[in-house]
């Protein structure tokens, strides 16, 4: 059902193993290096003070983190072909950066019904959990507000391509706080199974690829988000509701 491609996994971007073995290039960004040294040092001291086997293990990890901070080189990043060395803030999404997501779902409704829901962009916050609001400014332009980790994030977007009942494509306008581009495709599913809906989204996560990685570990990555949003879309369109158990009865098991 789902495919996810993060550009950092593209084989072309990955440094060839033999080429980097000799040159242990810096691939950890400035602030992250400082954090690495501080946490690593702390862990090493704490671990040594504990003086037992697990303490020793902790000290080892701490020492490795400290070393990583000092040298600015991380083997894990290297193996993954990624880097947190800062890139300038830009509105476009340069190749090799950003996150690209593809997600599909089949909905037992006609392309016409699904398209017309989506084309009224103001409907989208009903199915996209991250969105606070969308206001259509004129035929092609719209203003988007989303929840962010540090307050709301806002941007203007424009529709750059539209084929009725088939496709809507948009991107954030130049100078926006968030650089994003996306499209949604509606295609009749074989065997009277409704419509295959595919969303393609690319954007630059706020903290770069490291941020995307951390978000993934915390289960809040945009891929999961889009998948859940599409599921909500399907549920709302098919059943007219989004099933929930919030607010139902349960016990406490307190004595």
């Amino acid at each position, binding site marked *: 059902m789902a495919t996810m491609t993060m550009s950092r996994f593209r084989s072309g971007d990955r440094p060839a193993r033999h080429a980097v073995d000799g040159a242990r290039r810096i691939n950890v960004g400035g602030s992250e290096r400082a954090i690495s040294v501080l946490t690593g040092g702390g862990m090493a001291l704490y671990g040594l003070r504990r003086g037992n086997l697990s303490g020793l293990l902790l000290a080892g990890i701490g020492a490795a983190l400290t070393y990583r901070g000092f040298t600015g080189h991380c083997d894990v990043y290297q193996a993954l072909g990624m880097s947190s060395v800062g890139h300038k803030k830009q509105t476009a999404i340069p190749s090799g950066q950003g996150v690209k997501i593809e997600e599909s779902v089949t909905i037992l409704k006609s392309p016409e019904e699904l398209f017309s829901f989506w084309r009224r962009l103001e409907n989208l916050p009903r199915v996209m959990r991250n969105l606070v609001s969308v206001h259509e400014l004129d035929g092609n332009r719209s203003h988007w507000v989303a929840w962010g980790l540090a307050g709301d994030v806002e941007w203007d977007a424009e529709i750059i391509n539209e084929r009725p009942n088939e496709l809507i494509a948009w991107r954030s306008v130049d100078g926006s706080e968030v650089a994003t581009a996306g499209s949604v495709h509606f295609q009749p599913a074989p065997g009277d199974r409704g419509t295959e809906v595919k969303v393609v989204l690319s954007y630059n996560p706020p903290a770069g690829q490291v941020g995307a990685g951390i978000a993934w570990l915390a289960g809040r990555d945009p891929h999961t988000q889009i*998948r859940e949003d599409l*599921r909500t879309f*399907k549920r709302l369109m098919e059943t007219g509701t989004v*099933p929930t*158990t919030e*607010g*139902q*009865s349960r016990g406490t098991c307190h004595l």
Partner: protein
Amino acid sequence: MKAVCWCGKGKLRVEEVPEPKILDPQDVIIRVTATTICGSDLHLFGGYVPTLQPGDILGHEMVGQVIEAGDQVKKLSLGQRVVVSSVIACGHCWHCRTEEFSLCDNSNPNAWLQERYHGCVSAGVFGFSHLFGGYAGAQAEYVRVPFAEVGAFAVPEEMSDEQALSCSDIFPTGYMGADNCDLRGGEIVAVWGCGPVGLMAILSAYLLGAERVIAIDNLPERLRLASDVCGATTLNHNDVEVAEALRDLTGGRGPDACIDAVGMEAHGTDVWDDLYDRTQQTLMMQPDRLAVIRQMIRCCRKGGTISLLGVYGGTSDKLPLGIAFVKNLRLRMGNMHGPKYIPRVLEHCRAGRANPAFVYSHRLPLRLAPEGYTMFRNKEDECVKILLQP
């Protein structure tokens, strides 16, 4: 209201909890007049099913009276007596439209969680862990029924609560198990397990055209019900070698269809197989014990059907797939498609072709449910099924 809450592995409490509210215009609230403990509740009780949380209300079988209905509910009226499908289905998605209600795309609010475990989403089930939606269960005085027009069915006046209660889960489950065998008339069907679902499978196999049903268990009281009430030929696996007996009873062919009404807590008759499964289950390496499936694959006639009704939970090894392949067996399985089968079994009951009320060996007030679970699990006092009265 009072409700049976799971408070940890092997721990149940009847607690005072808030009464349910309408959360969606397609909901109804029913006042439960009869509910019961299912064999699969024992899997939950024993901690074999992950994602149950302390405080969860158990139970998925219920008969009751509609006391409140959401704005969009038109087909049900206040005061109406209904039986509710244990499986919750939206009625709108492609699977529901093709009557595969237990595969509903939309009724499980925790789809993301189930996707992590199973790689796919199936329907929500009342009181059956958060994997299956985390819906509050039926062992309570009141229950919220989501998508009520799809899952709640009017009970004909002439039917008793006991009869109707069986149509909530065990009868449609047994019926689907027999229906999955695609009987055309004249078949010999073997049913492993004479618990409530197994007994319903025997009744159903006859209703759907089986010539003879052979029932296998080791509890005399259950075998007695299988033979005396349901008309099956019975085998006690403590006394006879099942594979040999089945060959003898089928002219050497083996049963045309084999129905498993036992599931993940099967007791093997092969000491080493059983030890192997129990060890793996104890070490959390696999949640299932497979003795019954192995025996079914070995015993089934060539080209026959294996139909699984007992609940299985995870991945398992040592399945004799080679034998199944050589014999061209068909494997059918899964949770029952409640709204597909409930009208059929209700009609069989109404017309007097089946009376499933005989399975209830005990009646207890809801407040004694924890004792009921223990009694049912340990098969004390010849317990077959317990009706709970809120």
